[in-house]
């Protein structure tokens, strides 16, 4: 849930935090073992498809055809790794003649570090909410912790238990500001437990903690009952307080607080609620309540209520835990949850999809809450591979007969521009030791502009003028489409000599597919027209583009001006035409949507 714009105060750190050695990569999978692990996925996938096909037949809905290889690779790379495929990946996949190339490619993505990072960002977003500067939270540490767990293939019930019962030190006390809000990789020291930051985030308001727990992990909107008996469901204020009481013994004690750095706190369970609770009538009621789960199960458990809560949440008897996770993943991968809104699994909001939610949730539990297995199975379905085209029957809700267009998330957009334009080496070169800070700030800026209110009606595109302007004229997009030394554009122009080869390379980089014949003709004419114009005018174009400061009178923070060291190396009208080609591709809906 996002709230309205709140003030972000970005303290600019003087130096970037150093990235230490990267954590151990995910275990590699040998060919035979991989094939064996795909068998149950294939079986489950077939059962899902069968159930949905029956549903479609019953409703007279014609499913869309399966997508072609280029579209499939782009879709699955965005869904699993949070970015578009590289040119190399695209070429290799399109040339691959093997029969099982799709499952093999999916497997490679599941095992990649990018996949772990992508899941970490999704769950950081879901659990932490809007990127507001919360004073005691090291959100980057939380992301790093999540990434490490996803990379280690920790089962979901273990992972959630660790978050709910987390204790210890929240942070190494690094610089506050973007580097505390956005992870740029690396690892925290062993004595830091990044998971603690989630409890700390909500810890001042146990009511918020209870609400966040129920919503994030169980898909239950109990927070309505905070102020009054729930209007439509059976939760009462008493139920809410009992649930919140599970967190009543949490203590947050400050260890360090240095100016400009993230406060370091220690989280632990005490024997009783903190004394300040008794000064607040509402908190006092929670402090006095017997801790109970949503179904009335007593969570008193002597010293460790949170452990009791985690055990109850992740138990096989809990009707919400596996279904809530499966619903989210299904919605992420197909664009539509069985239950909508995806975190509102109440009895009066019955799931669509003819029992598929229960089928998949049971399989998820049976697998030991294996996250990879779930993704693998869904990606293997035909349902996942349906095209966006409406086909003869038009759009039908709750039939999964086609994939709907969805805007890329801010993170996906950012990582895709960086991939398409080859910006990583440029950031390294230009920003030097501040590269991490630059990356964090750029990502945050993209998120600030492109963040969509998840409360908004997702049925229609709700982009903003500012988003369009950011792609049209913005810093990251412009840097991405300017001929800079070492950029994607630079490489393409060096490696390929003919117009068709260069255009093909740019299309593969930006859109993951080669251009059609008519696109080749049109874009070829565009480029060659520029070359002819150049030849006709006897004047040599200036060596570099005009000064970047010409963009606006006030070139300071707020104006979109490229740092002085970034200048276009385009010398001819033809080179500038290629800049325009890449700009066009990055501004298309084909680029900014998942399809």
């Amino acid at each position, binding site marked *: 849930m996002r709230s309205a714009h709140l003030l972000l105060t970005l303290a600019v750190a003087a130096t970037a935090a150093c990235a230490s050695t990267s954590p151990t990569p995910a275990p590699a999978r040998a060919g035979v073992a991989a094939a064996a692990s795909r068998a149950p996925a294939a079986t489950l996938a077939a059962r899902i498809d069968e159930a949905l096909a029956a549903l479609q037949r019953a409703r007279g809905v014609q499913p869309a055809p399966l997508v072609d290889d280029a579209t499939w690779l782009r879709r699955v790379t965005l869904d699993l790794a949070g970015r578009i495929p590289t040119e190399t990946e695209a070429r290799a996949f399109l040339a691959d003649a093997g029969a099982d190339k799709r499952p093999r490619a999916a497997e490679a993505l599941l095992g990649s570090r990018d996949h772990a990072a992508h899941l970490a960002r999704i769950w950081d977003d879901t659990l932490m909410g809007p990127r507001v500067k919360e004073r005691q939270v090291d959100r980057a540490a939380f992301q790093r912790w999540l990434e490490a767990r996803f990379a280690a293939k920790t089962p979901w019930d273990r992972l959630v238990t660790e978050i709910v019962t987390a204790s210890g030190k929240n942070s190494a006390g690094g610089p506050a500001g973007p580097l505390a809000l956005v992870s740029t990789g690396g690892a925290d020291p062993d004595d830091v437990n990044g998971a603690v930051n989630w409890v700390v985030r909500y810890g001042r308001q146990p009511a918020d903690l209870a609400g966040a727990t129920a*919503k994030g992990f169980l898909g239950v909107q109990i927070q309505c009952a905070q102020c009054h008996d729930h209007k439509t469901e059976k939760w009462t204020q008493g139920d809410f307080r009992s649930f919140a009481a599970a967190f009543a013994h949490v203590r947050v004690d400050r260890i360090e607080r240095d100016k400009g750095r993230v406060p370091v706190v220690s989280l632990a369970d005490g024997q009783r609620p903190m004394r300040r609770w008794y000064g607040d009538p509402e908190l006092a009621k929670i402090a006095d309540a017997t801790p109970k789960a949503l179904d009335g199960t007593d969570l008193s458990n002597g010293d460790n209520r949170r452990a009791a809560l985690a055990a109850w949440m992740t138990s096989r008897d809990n009707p919400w835990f596996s279904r809530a996770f499966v619903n989210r993943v299904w919605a992420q991968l197909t664009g539509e949850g069985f239950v909508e809104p995806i975190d509102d699994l109440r009895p009066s909001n019955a799931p669509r999809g003819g029992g598929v939610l229960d089928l998949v949730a049971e399989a998820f539990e049976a697998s030991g809450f294996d996250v990879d297995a779930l993704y693998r199975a869904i990606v293997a379905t035909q349902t996942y591979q349906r095209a966006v085209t409406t086909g003869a029957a038009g759009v039908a809700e709750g039939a999964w007969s086609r994939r709907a267009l969805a805007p890329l998330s801010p993170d996906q957009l950012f990582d895709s521009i960086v991939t398409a334009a080859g910006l990583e080496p440029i950031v390294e070169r230009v920003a030097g030791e501040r590269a991490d800070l630059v990356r964090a700030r750029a990502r945050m800026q993209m998120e600030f502009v492109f963040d969509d209110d998840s409360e908004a009606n997702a049925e229609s595109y709700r982009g903003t003028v*500012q988003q369009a302007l950011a792609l049209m004229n913005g810093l990251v997009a412009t840097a991405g489409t300017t001929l800079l030394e070492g950029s994607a554009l630079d490489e393409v122009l060096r490696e390929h000599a003919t117009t068709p080869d260069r255009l093909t390379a740019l299309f593969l980089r930006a859109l993951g597919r080669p251009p059609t014949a008519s696109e080749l003709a049109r874009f070829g004419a565009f480029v060659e027209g520029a070359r002819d114009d150049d030849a006709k005018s006897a004047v040599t174009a200036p060596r570099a583009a005009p000064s970047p400061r010409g963009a606006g009178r006030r070139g300071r923070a707020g104006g979109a001006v490229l740092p002085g060291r970034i200048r276009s190396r385009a010398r001819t009208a033809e080179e500038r035409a290629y800049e325009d080609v890449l700009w066009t591709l990055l501004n298309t*809906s084909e680029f900014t949507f998942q399809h």
Partner: protein
Amino acid sequence: MPSPTRRSFMLGTAGALAATLAARLSERAARADEPGARPAAPAPAATSCILLWLNGGPSHIDTFDPKPGAKSGGPFKAIASRATGVRLCEHLPRLAEQAQHLAFVRGLSTKEGSHPRAQLLVHTGHVPNPTVVAPSLGSWIARELGKTDAALPPFVSLGGPGGGPGFLGQSFGPLVVQSPGAMPQDLAPALPIGPARDDRRRGLLDEMERGFAARTGDGAVGERRAVYARATRLAHAPERRVFEIDDEPEAVRAAYGDTDFGRGCLVARRLVETGVPFVEVTLDGWDTHKDNFGRTKKLMGALDPAFATLVRELVERDLYRRTVVLCIGEFGRTPSIGGDDGRDHHPAAFSAVVGGGGLRGGLALGQTDAEGARVVADGTSLPDLFATIVARLGLDPGATRTSPLGRPIAITDGGTPIARLSA
């Protein structure tokens, strides 16, 4: 510079008669609000609203509700203003000169003492609720009064992020201008290209878009293209010059003050002149847990000329009747002064200033106790304040829209317009 003694001079002479007459007239005007009085002809609706957002929670005691004799009244003196009986902090002299156009609402009180929650509450008029994010006032007004064919966006926020759109969706969020007085971010390319290149690549983009829309048959492409077209239009519109203040006379720019907030107020005047329905201008820094007096005095140095000049110019340019102006922060500050010479959060009693749009000016509404700690008379609720404003804009305070979870949410949380402010 205003001379508060002029009025006392007036009262001491023939002006005494005039003053008595004026008092009788305002009495009668007050009675006109009572039921049974002859109703005034309805004034035409206002068309714009300017919100001056004092971020951090300004100390009401040190600004609009001074308590010079009180134990913790602080070092600032109080001065008379052009609003009868209303005294302001001595560091708001220019504002005092415009006080006859403004109502000083001193009886605000909420329960939200944390910045994020209070900021949300005061921007939206609804208590923050985890299940539904109410739209800010700016976004509501953008939704209700914005024209789809206008080149400029209906909601502009200068110097701060501004209120958010909540469940109305991102397209009703503000266009944020981080450096008031300059073009908004990304309105011009980061590396300039000529119009020929601009045209040619947009033509190429257009063709790609048409192809993709046809291939997918999905309405979202058309919607994105519409938004993109609006952005292109804004980037090329001559009206975008409204954001730059270089063509304003030096004297005008000086009167608003050489601060981001001053420039923001000048841009706000220009925006409402062109018909933009909602403009928010942020002045940050009021969260004075430390050095309250030094910092608040400095902030008033920015607030005073900008706010006063804005009101004066709106009046002079005949814009004041159609522009409502609200100046407010998320809460006030404690009477008690802490160890760092600071005041802490105090939502139990705080002030706002409202005027324009045909609202009554020259008065104070509501009273706090001798310390400024509690509201003791004529308290004002936020919903009622919002209702007063939206009613002036010709909107129904009770009109609702449905949130994604199916709850009807009204513009104001059950507010009704305040009779004493409505002329």
